[in-house]
């Protein structure tokens, strides 16, 4: 009896030690392999592939296939295989015509005339024409329909059919960024016949003009689309079927790519990218995104009401080290208030890493002994890593930061249930933003315009600047790109110097794929495009 009493704990601890040791040795393998493999990822032999269908593993469940009622990037990305809009975005988030051939915008950005491409049919045979466009825009701009994307089109006053292939959209208020809204996934066209037939169930039966037709959607497991043989673009599509499968666990998604059960996966966690790149025929592709990472500073509260303090914090943080620590180096500088990938971006002079200057600015502001503050952020490991990094950097200039990670629902409650600026508890907030329309307006107005403060919108810095506000709204009064560019250049300069944020960086999009797969890529907003998917052996 005595013997056994000791034996079991002994064996257990022995086993634990073995586990820890094996985990450690795995770790050191990782480190040594990291450096050598980046270079030869492209040189490895092409992996084997049977058949002409592909599987794409994604990180979360699909929500809806109704483009007008979708606000998650992933569902929108899956819709892009089946549905198309008048305009779209290319690989670098430049706007390109898709179902429209050309457009004309009035001087005051109130009237838009679209000339449509001729001879296109929806998957159910319904012709694509001006009437179909009208049905779609009327649908999404009607508040009665309770669609999530109503807000992007509530400004539409009327949509008129001019002739079979010409549509005229008139807005209630001038809105210079409207074309981008028409390029957004929310403005994709669904067959009018299907809308009538399925009603609300259209979310489960998408019928569009795209390269692939909807086959089935097992809500708990996968969605399948198949080749549209009548597709209007010559030579496309090149694969027979695409299966989209939500696989929430990072390790499992990677395993699927390793075994070939998946041909394309995203996102690839940055800390595992090096480990899989160049083995088993896997290539990891990282490209700059439009996801800006920043910390908002509550500009109505001491000590952040002083621009010197805000600039000091910007000088105190080593952005290069930030990207290395949090995103394993997969990222780039945020050198304006919007990322480089957005329209009308204009580069500013970066706040270099200079702790001495930071200390000096703090002293000038009367905080030579530093101060104590609190940072809020999400509770995922990236956000926690980021906040702890900030804590360490700011401690070097005498600022003590308390890190408070919160579950996302709780966090948004703490920030957005506050009704007035005086009641706001938030001091520092680690956040991120991706302007899904690709336009500067949606990258600036919700985050930094004076009347965008919570609970109305996302100005968590409670930043108020009349000069900037005037320019932000002036840029919407015209559709003339040059005038808009001038206004946004000025806005970016003003706000950059005012530094309501700590500008940290821009994440990369991370996709993993087998090396026989071509034509599938991630857009800078994190959406995937598989229209041109092709297997090259």
């Amino acid at each position, binding site marked *: 009896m005595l013997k056994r009493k000791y034996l079991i704990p002994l064996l257990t601890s022995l086993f634990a030690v073995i586990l820890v040791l094996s985990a450690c040795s795995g770790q050191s393998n990782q480190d040594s392999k990291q450096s050598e493999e980046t270079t030869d990822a492209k040189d490895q032999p092409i992996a084997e592939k049977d058949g002409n269908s592909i599987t794409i593993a994604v990180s979360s469940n699909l929500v809806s296939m109704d483009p007008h009622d979708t606000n998650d990037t992933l569902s929108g990305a899956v819709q892009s295989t089946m549905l198309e809009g008048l305009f779209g975005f290319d690989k670098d988030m430049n706007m390109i015509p898709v179902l429209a051939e050309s457009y004309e915008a009035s001087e005051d950005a109130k009237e838009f005339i679209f000339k449509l491409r001729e001879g296109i049919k929806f998957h159910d045979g319904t012709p694509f024409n001006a009437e179909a466009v009208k049905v779609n825009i009327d649908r999404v701009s009607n508040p009665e329909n309770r669609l999530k994307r109503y807000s992007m089109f509530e400004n539409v006053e009327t949509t008129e059919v001019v002739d079979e292939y010409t549509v005229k959209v008139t807005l209630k208020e001038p809105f210079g960024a409207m074309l981008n809204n028409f390029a957004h996934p929310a403005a994709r066209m669904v067959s009018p016949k299907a809308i009538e037939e399925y009603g609300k169930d259209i979310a489960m039966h998408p019928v569009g003009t795209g390269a692939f037709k909807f086959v089935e959607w097992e*809500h*708990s497991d996968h969605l399948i689309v198949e080749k549209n043989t009548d597709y209007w673009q010559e030579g496309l599509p090149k694969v027979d079927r695409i299966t989209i*499968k939500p696989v929430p666990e990072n390790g499992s998604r990677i395993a699927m790519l390793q075994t070939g059960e998946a041909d394309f996966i995203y996102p690839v966690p940055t800390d595992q990218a090096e480990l899989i790149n160049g083995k088993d025929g896997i290539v990891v592709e990282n490209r700059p995104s439009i996801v800006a990472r920043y910390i908002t500073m509550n500009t109505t509260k001491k000590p952040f009401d002083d621009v010197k303090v805000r600039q000091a914090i910007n000088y105190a943080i080593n952005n290069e080290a930030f990207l290395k620590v949090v995103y394993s180096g997969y990222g780039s500088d945020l050198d304006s208030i919007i990322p480089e990938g957005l329209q009308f971006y204009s580069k500013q002079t970066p706040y270099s890493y200079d702790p001495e200057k930071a200390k000096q600015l703090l002293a000038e502001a009367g905080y030579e002994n530093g101060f104590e503050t609190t940072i809020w952020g999400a509770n995922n490991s990236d956000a926690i890593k980021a906040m702890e990094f900030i804590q360490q950097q700011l401690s070097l200039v005498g600022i003590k930061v308390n890190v408070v990670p919160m*579950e996302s629902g709780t966090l948004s409650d703490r920030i957005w249930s506050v009704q007035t600026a005086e009641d706001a508890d938030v001091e520092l907030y680690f956040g991120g933003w991706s302007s899904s329309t690709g336009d500067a307006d949606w990258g600036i107005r919700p985050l930094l315009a004076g009347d965008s403060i919570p609970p109305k919108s996302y100005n968590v810095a409670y930043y108020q600047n009349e000069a900037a506000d005037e320019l932000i709204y002036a840029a919407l009064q015209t559709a003339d790109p040059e005038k808009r560019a001038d206004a946004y250049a000025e806005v970016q300069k003003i706000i950059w110097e005012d530094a309501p944020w700590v500008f940290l960086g821009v994440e990369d999009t991370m996709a993993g794929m087998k090396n026989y797969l071509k034509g599938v890529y991630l857009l800078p907003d994190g959406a995937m495009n598989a229209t041109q998917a092709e297997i090259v052996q």
Partner: protein
Amino acid sequence: MFRFIVKRLFGIIPTLLIVSILVFLFVHMIPGDPARLVAGPDASYEDVELVRQDLGLDKPLVTQYFTYMSGLFQGDLGTSMKTKRPVFDEIADRFMPTFWLTIWSMVWAIIFGLLIGVISATKRNKWQDYTGMFTAVSGISLPSFWLGLMLIQLFSVQLGWFPTGGNDSWTSYILPSITLGAGVAAVIARFTRSSLMDILREDYIRTGRAKGLKENIVVWKHALKNAMIPVVTMTGLQFGFLLGGSIVVETVFSWPGLGRLLIDSVSYRDYPVIQAELLLFAFEFILINLIVDVLYGIMNPQIRY
């Protein structure tokens, strides 16, 4: 016995009513605003308010509870806030995968658990006992996400025997059910061992041996049957837990089950789905407890209600 079962079945109703109130309060009291989450990250304040009205979340909590309950009594579990599909469909889609995974995990866990437990008890303090208990302790101690990922690495990536996830064929049941059943098998083994060791000391066992019964008959027929009561209780509980769907195992193996639905709907504050799932789990537990009670009577005819 029949009267007992009927009585217990009726007893489920008040229990479920109380559970429904608790679940409703609990779900609505978690911080987080479903309207904002449904409206999405770039929705305006007006949109969020519109969504709130649509979901009926602007009404007092009591009104919301009665609306929910009156729907429930008419067999309407509501509509998922996230997908706008009926909650019944969302759960029905995922019930069977979780159910079958539970069954397979339990089947192998019971077989191996009993086997290890009996061997350990009869070969007390011999190498068989140590090996058995070592395996059992490992089964309890290994975190299932770790075990799952290791099995995937070994059997899917390196050897290519089984798929990494999903439930497309019978082969895809093997790895997740091993992962899920490991802990259960270990618990059953330990319970069987200690319970059987006690029974083996009883007088009637000595009598059995004295009158020349074979050791196998003594152990497997006479001793094991009486040693089973605590084991059955434990197994029933474990069965109930597994039926709720394991969040970890279903996530690691991309299993389209109830556990993943639960974690998804909690992070989305999808009230109707969370409520329906929790009520379902409560119901399953009550039902399993009833079955366990009935099993007692079968195993030991002295137990009568």
